[in-house]
């Protein structure tokens, strides 16, 4: 089977409401795939579906050929898919380091009872986790902040901490839900830089983004959704210039030229 994360023919219905009707999306390792669409078009539902929070009524999700459809979220993580949330879900009192350490959970070697008893193996495992957190913190430029409480950071930094937490799980595919929302231009640039670096290390990224400028500069492919269907897919340039996408999506915030000027 093919390498990569693929979701094919995904359908999700909440009661009589069809949130997704036959959506296909694919993420290749080392590539950034963008997902655009108006609010309510099904982007977050697709994320919830791929990560096991919502069961699809039809369709299949595979990771490198392994079927992960309908697995619960904690099992999906073990197959190398990690996600962030549109609104960061963080404990504001936790430190940056401990937030990142939480990401390691799915591949902790020590047992529950061993950790309780404090056996030497559990001690070594804990030290190993701390050592492994360092390069991740370095990579996202968070090393200096490791002792800070997450609640005291800017939204941009909190989102970076969330990305770091995803990477700690050993994810080969990360799903970022509007990571640039509410960020300053400088923070967006920094985030984009880090996402590129993450992709360059071989991780496949699926990103929900409203900022068209960011989608064009960051993504290798793009998919536009509308009311639960794929409107258009291809290179970001082609998708952004697609007439249907412009009508459905960009029409709401002005024409393409205005968007380009803003970006």
């Amino acid at each position, binding site marked *: 089977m093919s390498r990569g994360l693929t979701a094919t023919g995904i359908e999700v219905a909440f009661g009589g409401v069809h949130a997704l009707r036959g959506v296909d999306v694919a993420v290749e390792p080392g590539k950034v795939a963008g997902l655009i669409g108006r609010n309510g078009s099904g982007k977050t539902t697709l994320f919830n579906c791929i990560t096991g929070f919502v069961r699809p009524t039809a369709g299949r999700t595979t990771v490198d050929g392994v079927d992960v459809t309908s697995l619960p979220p904690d099992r999906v993580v073990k197959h190398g898919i990690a996600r962030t949330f549109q609104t960061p879900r963080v404990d504001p009192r936790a430190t940056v380091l401990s937030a990142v350490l939480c990401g390691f959970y799915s591949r902790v070697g020590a047992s529950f009872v061993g950790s309780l008893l404090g056996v030497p193996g559990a001690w070594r495992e*804990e030290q190993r986790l701390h050592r492994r957190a360092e390069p991740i913190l370095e990579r996202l430029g968070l090393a200096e902040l490791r002792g800070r409480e997450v*609640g005291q950071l800017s939204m941009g930094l909190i989102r970076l901490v969330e990305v770091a937490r995803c990477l700690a799980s050993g994810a080969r595919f990360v799903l970022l839900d509007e990571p640039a929302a509410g960020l300053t231009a400088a923070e967006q640039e920094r985030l984009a830089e880090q996402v590129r670096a993450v992709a360059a290390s071989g991780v496949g990224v699926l990103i929900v983004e409203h900022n068209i400028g960011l989608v064009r500069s960051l993504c290798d492919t793009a998919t536009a959704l509308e009311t639960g269907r794929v409107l258009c897919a291809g290179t970001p340039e082609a998708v952004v210039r697609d007439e249907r996408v412009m009508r459905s999506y960009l029409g709401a915030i002005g024409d393409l030229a205005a968007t380009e000027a803003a970006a």
Partner: protein
Amino acid sequence: MSFPGQRYLGPRPNTLIIAVCVLVALPVVLTRPVWTDSAVVLGVYALLGLSVGISYGQAGILTMSQGAFAAIGGYAAAILTTRFGWPPYADLLVAMALPAALAYGVARLVTRLSPLATALATLALGSVIEILIRNADALTGGYIGLAGIPSVGAINTPAGYACLAWGMIVVTVFLYENLMCSAYGRALNVLRVDQARARADGIDVPALMSAGFAVSAAVAGAAGWLYAHYISFLSPESLDTHISISALLMAVIGGAGYILGPIVGTLLFDGLTRLMPAAELQGFFYGAALIIILLAARTGILGLLAGLARRLRRPDATPAPRAANLSPQESLP
């Protein structure tokens, strides 16, 4: 500059504090017989409080069955030693394993419910266990109870039991702190604050909550074991729902989320009420303390102190926003 793992390699602060306090206080306490007896009973309550801390403070299960778990531990000890002639050390294992296994099974069934429903399920569990104990005459002695439970080996004086009780507390705090400094402890903190976040981290939420509840029940079972051997008599009234609620109150008052919180709560309030002349007034003090704590310091006495310490260190710092503000309900089924 800190190095990775420093916090883990450093001494366990809570274990150190409780060990030093016990070593300093015990020689003084042992000089007076009344204090010695109180030290044993408070030790039993403190163990129960710690069990609430693990369950409610960490795994997020508001438990009202700790007294019943202690009763299982106590009756296991009583039955094994008086009826089957087990040596009074060997029965500790059963007294801890039995409630732990029951707690794990029940938690797997009920933790999918809302927190409030789970709390009510633990209350119901406690009542069921109490009824079973009353009705299983052949095994438990029914309403009359079981007498003549032997003392634990060479330990047969109140002073010996006081040392045993507080030794058990130090060991429990050590294990508890081990757990909280591990990936599982961090995971418990995550799932208590936000279950969706926990699932996204790869945590099997029902399994981990149940494991936490099982550990909590094991500690309660150990408390019951100690109580049974010390008092040498056990009846259905010895460790009932009233004890479960008291343990919960003590833990909340001291600070259920803090490792030493339940011990502080137990010592302060049960200790103080023991000094009060009228036993009937105890309920009044418990209630008043609980209302004050819920109004003034939701995180208990230790939470209040920690907040003050934080403000002293950084006078300009504004309190961190609550989790709820940062993660408004994103609807996840």
